[in-house]
């Protein structure tokens, strides 16, 4: 059993970090959602952020989102990189005046007390070409390591945001490594009964890296991309924003897989990104109309 576990007050397991953030943001007034049930590259892609950041209605939500980035896989051999990892996402619209202090307080619930650390807000203007999104904000560094992205959305799916949402994205593995003083992701203590991150995800990292880089059938993927794109457009014609957006997410993940299989040239890459952005724009636009009509 690791040394830190003996001091219950100063030790936070991976699941403690999740529970404590959920509890904190629930007390603040956020609804606690569950992860979206499709493969996404980041918590921002969850419709609770992408679509809900559009339109005039206030919104406060928090959730864990498994994020898949096929090209980041390393067959479980790299201590800092995974093709599947977790983000804890908070989205609040409109952004509250004292959000920075609210955020800093949240860190103290997961073992990072601001007065004991060098917390810095480092400029990081964010853009997502596939979502047609942009925001201004910071990377939050704790003792030199990035632990959160803090972004004020200015544009989403090509549409100006009004009012403006703030998005907080905590990197759960990084934070857990930091509070547990671990140098390897796979050594993170998942719970207090000795279960480690590697016990849950090492095999998955090995197998999915093999799938992402070596075995994914690119002919099927190319066909599936076309199918998802076509289905999305058809659903947009029927003004069904949420099912259409699901198809956009599928197209986006298929694109990421094709990218990791190395079958997309530099020139083709831009074309694919533009096609996904058009699907996201269409979904955002239909969603926004539905919100204003109500």
């Amino acid at each position, binding site marked *: 059993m690791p040394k830190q576990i003996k001091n219950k007050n100063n030790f936070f397991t991976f699941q403690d970090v999740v529970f404590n953030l959920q509890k904190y943001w629930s007390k603040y007034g956020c609804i606690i959602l569950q992860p979206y049930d499709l493969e996404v590259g980041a918590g921002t892609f969850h419709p609770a952020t992408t679509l809900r950041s559009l339109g005039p209605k206030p919104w406060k939500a928090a959730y864990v989102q498994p994020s898949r980035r096929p090209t980041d896989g390393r067959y479980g051999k790299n201590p800092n990189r995974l093709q599947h990892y977790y983000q804890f996402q908070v989205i609040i619209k409109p952004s509250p005046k004292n959000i920075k202090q609210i955020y800093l307080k949240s860190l103290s619930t997961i073992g990072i007390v601001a007065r004991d650390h060098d917390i810095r807000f480092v400029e990081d203007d964010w853009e997502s070409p596939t979502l047609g999104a942009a925001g*201004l904000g910071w990377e939050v560094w704790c003792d030199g390591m990035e632990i959160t992205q803090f972004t*004020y959305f200015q544009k989403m799916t090509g549409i100006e945001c009004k009012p403006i949402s703030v998005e907080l994205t905590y990197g759960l593995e990084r934070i857990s490594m930091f509070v547990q003083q671990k140098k390897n992701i796979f050594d993170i203590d998942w719970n207090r009964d000795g279960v480690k991150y590697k016990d849950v995800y090492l095999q998955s990292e090995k197998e999915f890296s093999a799938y992402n880089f070596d075995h994914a059938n690119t002919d099927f993927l190319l066909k599936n991309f076309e199918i998802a794109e076509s289905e999305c457009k058809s659903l947009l014609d029927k003004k069904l924003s949420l099912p259409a957006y699901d198809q956009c997410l599928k197209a986006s993940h298929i694109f990421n897989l094709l990218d990791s299989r190395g079958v997309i040239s530099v020139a083709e890459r831009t074309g694919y990104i533009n096609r996904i952005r058009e699907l996201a724009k269409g979904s955002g636009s239909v969603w926004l109309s539905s919100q204003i009509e109500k």
Partner: protein
Amino acid sequence: MSELFVELFSEEIPSNLQINARKQLEDLLKQNLSSSNLKPKSLEVFSTPTRLTIYVTGLPKIIKIPAAEIKGPKVGVPESVISNYAKSKNLNVTDLQKKETEKGTFYFAKVKAKEISTDEELEKIIPQTLKDINWKKSMKWSDFEMNWGRPLISILAIFNEGLLKFNFAHLETVNFTMLETDDQIKQVKVKNFR
């Protein structure tokens, strides 16, 4: 000695934006004070990631505007132009005088000498100066219409130890500074720059 102290407290502004805003603020304020016949003894602008600060000394309490004859539109222009000009000088059209110059005959307005309180003038000059800053990259936040480098939280404005009252977008000036301690912000009342 008179003292003007303005502090704009915001969330962390990136260094390149901060430097640009600081330089512009200094230049614009110098220009705007000069246009209002205000000649400070010193004018300095400082910045930190969360603060843009203006410190000006040696401003008079009263601005004396000497009597003057101010050249207006050329005789023969549409009547609306003439009446607008007279109105801008708080005069009637009949108060304007026609005078010949080398370039033709023009209307002139005789403006009497007057005194304006510096407070009142600063309450106009400073928000205008802030508005004139041209951010290289700016953003909106919450449900406000304002654009700034990063969310602007508070404006402290003091002239000769008294609150200088003005509004800038949704913000109203205050006489306290904001101190960040760990995860809290405290308000501390301020009388002067020291």
